């Protein structure tokens, strides 16, 4: 989880992202960041998400749980 949050923080160009942080509240959360997150999840976790999958996601923790559920299936 920590490693995951570090990777998200790097994409959003901030020092730290917490599990409860709302992703859409970051000013850098735009289509470019979404694409970067999708690429990062594919490369590091073998999970292929679409931008639409991220629609209902609120916090960084929500995204982490979505990735974990996709990894199992």
């Amino acid at each position: 989880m920590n490693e995951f949050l570090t990777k998200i923080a790097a994409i959003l160009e901030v020092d730290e992202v917490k599990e409860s942080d709302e992703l859409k509240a970051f000013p850098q959360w735009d289509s470019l960041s979404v694409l970067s997150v999708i690429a990062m999840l594919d490369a590091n976790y073998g999970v292929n998400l679409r931008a639409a999958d991220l629609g209902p996601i609120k916090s960084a923790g929500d995204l982490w749980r979505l990735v974990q559920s996709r990894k199992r299936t």
Partner: protein
Amino acid sequence: MNFIFRRKRISGILTVVPANERSFVEEMRNFNFPEARSLKLKEVMGYNKRRLVEPHVCVSDLAVFGLQHLLERGLLTRDQIDVLLLVTQSPDHFIPPTSNIIQGRLGLKQDMLCLDINQACAGFVVGLIEAFLLLEQESVRKVVLINGDVLSRKTSPKDRNIYPLMGDAASLTVVERDAEDSVIHANLKMDGSRHEALMIPAGGFRLPSSPETAVLEDAGDNNLRAKDHLRMDGSAIFNFVQVEVPPLIESLLASAGASMDSVDYFLCHQPNRFMLQKLADKMKVPYAKMPSNVVEHFGNGGGATLPIAITFNLASQLRNGHCQVCVAGFGGGLVWASMLMRLGGLSFCEMIDFA
């Protein structure tokens, strides 16, 4: 679907790009985004310079310019052209086929086949497959495959999703029978259920262009475009390429009994540098073997970008020697296609500016 072709070869490739160059930095103020984010986009995607036609230039103009270049230099003669195969999504008119317009403008013979094919970014591979099939006929000695699009004319300058990557271009590839006993493997897949990922909604018979379809609408994420404009679901296309292309190429190499290491170059359609580097990572191909530098110099001109990757990066190698290459195209349709062949000994392999 798998294909095998015997005794066929590419004998020359010419690419034509408009002389008119635009720069991302000059145009990024059109977007409703903070400048820092646009610069980040430039850095990640590899956007920089691109070539666009003037608003009145059509595909037949680029094609005639390129064919005249070949005819004037004796690299091709009029009577050698038995087939003019044009792959485009931006025809001059709905009727007649643009390949016939090109034939007429150049005064080519009547005893020939002119054929338009509507294909997007996989159009180079699909066009080669069609050219090889036609060369089975004894009466067909040379096929001139033209890939060309001027789709910058159908993109919204206020759509950061697609505008900064678009380029205009054409390529002319001469395809003929090979005296050597060569074998070319190809495969392709199509999925029309995902056709909305890349489309121009209006302007055809389903939704004719009207004052309403020309109105700029908020497409979300601060991008503005009209129904007359080309739209792309960027993340869906990214996902499509990462999921579908690696297994396609694996399967191609398996049916050809070839290893990844035996391939000198993986020459792909050029959507942007980011997507190609992620594809190379996934396929464990070194970046040097998969060029991704077309968009930063010329923009993405659809089916002609793959030939541009060849003429821009490998011109002298392919005129003076041979390489084992895997070419792969992917895009609207959706369509993904790949081909494995020995490419080289080309009588011409060059780029020219259209002015």
